[in-house]
């Protein structure tokens, strides 16, 4: 046994340890994994997500004992589970409630990463793996929602699969291939059932495992965003361990068990008293069997997809709508490369950054709420404005990541982007048509002009260059782009109702850009960063 690591375990444990790294793994991941001692309430959601995954796998397994993935039988088999299978209703509601709670904890887990900068400091891969988990989770939830074969199942899936239809050239064949038929049918239901088993049971746990391996290799971040591994060494348990770390087992296990207790209290309260959650967790039209002749009057995806759904429908073109929706997710993948500020936690970043994150969260919630509403002029415009702010967030995040940079955005760079943008619009709106060339030139020219104009105004009122001028220039440029987008792509002279809404609700991007960019241009105190302490705080 010379090639095996030495250990002091005796008896059965020693026998096992000679043949399998049982205690070695236990120690590496739990008993000797030193996590920062200053975790707060935000650090419950990772372990809770694992708990819900386990809930989902087990409740799903027991549902599959009775469910029939057949277009003729599926709806009735779900009703059979609800009415005739002993305790079937409980298992089904556990599964459907679990789906929503999965997204609640995952969204909170992700927001935690945003506010404490947990995607920074060699944690880029950890973040990318996490985002992949989020994608796999969305795919799983989407396919699961088809299985009851109700009205919302059918039409929801119809819309999402048709997203692929909008891809130029290959879209049509791709969506037929995904469905296995020319319309959403039994073939689709059958494969969705298989995938709804395969992804969460095989792929998700594998991704979660890789997520944990990456986390434990780098070490956990904390609310102060300080690397405890770079701090002083030596604690009660080990002279080499970080002084500000405590072993995950037993300390954080006990903390998480408390979190589990609170979580279960809320979870089962919903399961027993409001499993449909007023139509948010299970939508009323889904209690009607699927009918290919009739779309329900108000269709909306389940709440956890509605923010992206609003983005989709606020862009007046199928292909660009799909692009917009998917880039809303892809941009999240890029956070570690957009936000390059060395300070991780928002506690020590400037106030504008904090405002940006809070406004982003609020905008995300409004987008979600809009997705459940029907498209009336007021809501349509609100959805569009929130979509604009959603995308502005990423630009502003990049601007805030260098709060003391003191040069205005370069006009050369602006013109380069304008050329690329113009070319994209040209290709996108008809390569060989006169209209396409014209559109490309208009968009490119407008972008370049707005860029230079923004720089010029900032120079007039805030002096050339300097921190203030940089913020002001970006404020004018981004606001100019929003107004150009409104006028060029959305303005229809004959539609007065929409125009009035457009003008009134211009207030939202103005307020957003004002708070995040104009305020730091006017007052240096909003832009001030706080000193990061050496050690984690209580």
């Amino acid at each position, binding site marked *: 046994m010379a090639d095996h690591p030495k250990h002091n375990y005796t008896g059965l444990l020693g026998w096992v340890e000679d043949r399998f790294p049982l205690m070695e793994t236990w120690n590496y991941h739990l008993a000797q994994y030193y996590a920062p001692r200053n975790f707060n309430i935000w650090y419950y959601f990772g372990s809770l997500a694992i708990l819900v995954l386990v809930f989902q796998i087990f409740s799903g397994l027991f549902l599959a004992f009775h469910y029939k993935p057949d277009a003729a039988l599926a709806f009735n088999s779900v009703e059979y589970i609800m009415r005739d299978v002993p305790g079937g209703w409980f298992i089904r509601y556990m599964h459907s409630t679990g789906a929503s709670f999965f997204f609640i904890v995952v969204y909170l887990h992700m927001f935690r990463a945003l506010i404490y900068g947990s995607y920074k400091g060699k944690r880029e891969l950890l973040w990318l793996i996490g985002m992949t988990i989020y994608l796999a989770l969305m795919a799983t939830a989407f396919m699961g929602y088809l299985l009851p074969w109700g009205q919302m199942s059918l039409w929801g899936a119809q819309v999402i699969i048709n997203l692929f*239809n909008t891809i130029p050239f290959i879209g049509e064949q791709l969506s037929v291939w995904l469905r296995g038929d*020319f319309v959403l049918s039994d073939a689709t239901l059958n494969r969705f059932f298989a995938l709804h088993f395969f992804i969460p049971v095989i792929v998700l746990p594998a991704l979660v495992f890789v997520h944990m391996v990456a986390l434990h290799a780098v070490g956990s971040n904390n609310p102060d965003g300080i690397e405890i591994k770079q701090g002083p060494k030596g604690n009660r348990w080990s002279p080499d361990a970080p002084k500000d770390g405590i072993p995950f087992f037993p300390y954080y296990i006990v903390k998480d068990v408390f979190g589990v207790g609170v979580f279960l209290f809320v979870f089962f309260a919903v399961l027993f008293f409001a499993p449909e959650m007023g139509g948010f967790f299970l939508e009323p039209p889904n209690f009607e069997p699927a009918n290919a002749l*009739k779309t329900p009057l108000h269709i909306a995806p389940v709440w956890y997809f509605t923010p992206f759904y609003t983005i989709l429908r606020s862009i007046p073109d199928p292909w660009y*709508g799909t692009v917009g929706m998917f880039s809303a997710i892809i941009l999240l993948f890029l956070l570690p490369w957009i936000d390059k500020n060395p300070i991780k936690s928002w506690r020590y970043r400037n106030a504008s950054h904090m405002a940006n994150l809070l406004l982003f969260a609020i905008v995300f919630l409004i987008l979600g709420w809009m997705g459940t509403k029907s498209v009336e002029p007021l809501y349509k415009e609100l959805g569009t404005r929130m979509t604009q702010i959603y995308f502005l967030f990423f630009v502003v995040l990049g601007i805030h990541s260098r709060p003391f940079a003191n040069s205005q955005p370069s006009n050369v760079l602006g013109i380069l982007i304008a050329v690329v943008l113009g070319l994209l619009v040209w290709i996108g709106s008809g390569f060989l048509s006169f209209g396409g060339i014209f559109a490309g030139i208009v968009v490119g020219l407008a972008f370049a002009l707005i860029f230079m104009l923004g720089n010029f105004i900032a120079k007039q009122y805030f002096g050339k260059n300097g921190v203030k001028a940089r913020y002001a220039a970006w404020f004018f440029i981004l606001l100019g782009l929003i107004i150009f987008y409104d006028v060029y792509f959305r303005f229809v002279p004959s539609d007065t*109702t929409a125009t009035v809404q457009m003008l009134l609700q211009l207030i939202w991007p103005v307020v957003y850009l004002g708070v995040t960019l104009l305020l730091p241009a006017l007052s240096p105190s909003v832009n001030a960063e706080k000193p990061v302490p050496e050690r984690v705080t209580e």
Partner: protein
Amino acid sequence: MANSGVDTKRRRFLIAATSVVGAVGVAPLAYAFLGSMAPSARALAAGAPVEVDVSKIEAGQLTRVLWQGKPVWVVNRTPEMLSNLPSLDNALRDPNSDVLTQQPEYAKNATRSIKPEYVVLVGICTHLGCSPGYRPEVAPADLGAEWKGGWLCACHGSRFDLAGRVYKNVPAATNLVVPPHYYKTDNIVLVGLDGGKA
């Protein structure tokens, strides 16, 4: 074992050859598996044409039939509805049906139909495939004073007029599809075939 006897060139050749043979093997395997997800022979065989008796549709009413798993609408438009159509041209994205994939040649006209009053449309929104709701009334409160009747897609708010033509500034970019169809007799329209007129 020392390194002395290692023929690295030969080793590299063997690794390359194994990889190539492996990749050649993966291609047909992928083809077989991915190909199995395409529509089966049974799905390909479905899609027979359907008959509609237009004389049974009241003026202004819409009837639905299922063709190839999709809803198909036949509407008997009143003279008033037809006379409203040209007035909307400015608010529409493709008033003259210039996107040729959206209708057969015999339906590329002002009413997008063979007989002016009866329009035959695939009832699937050209945005993302919901089935829009029929809203024939003029200027209802929720659709605004400019509304002259048509379809509203509740999913994403796309609007179409009573010839299935799409409005500007809505998510859908093209007019509703007119399926191939022809009149077998004066009153019977066959959806799915165009009687050799294509």
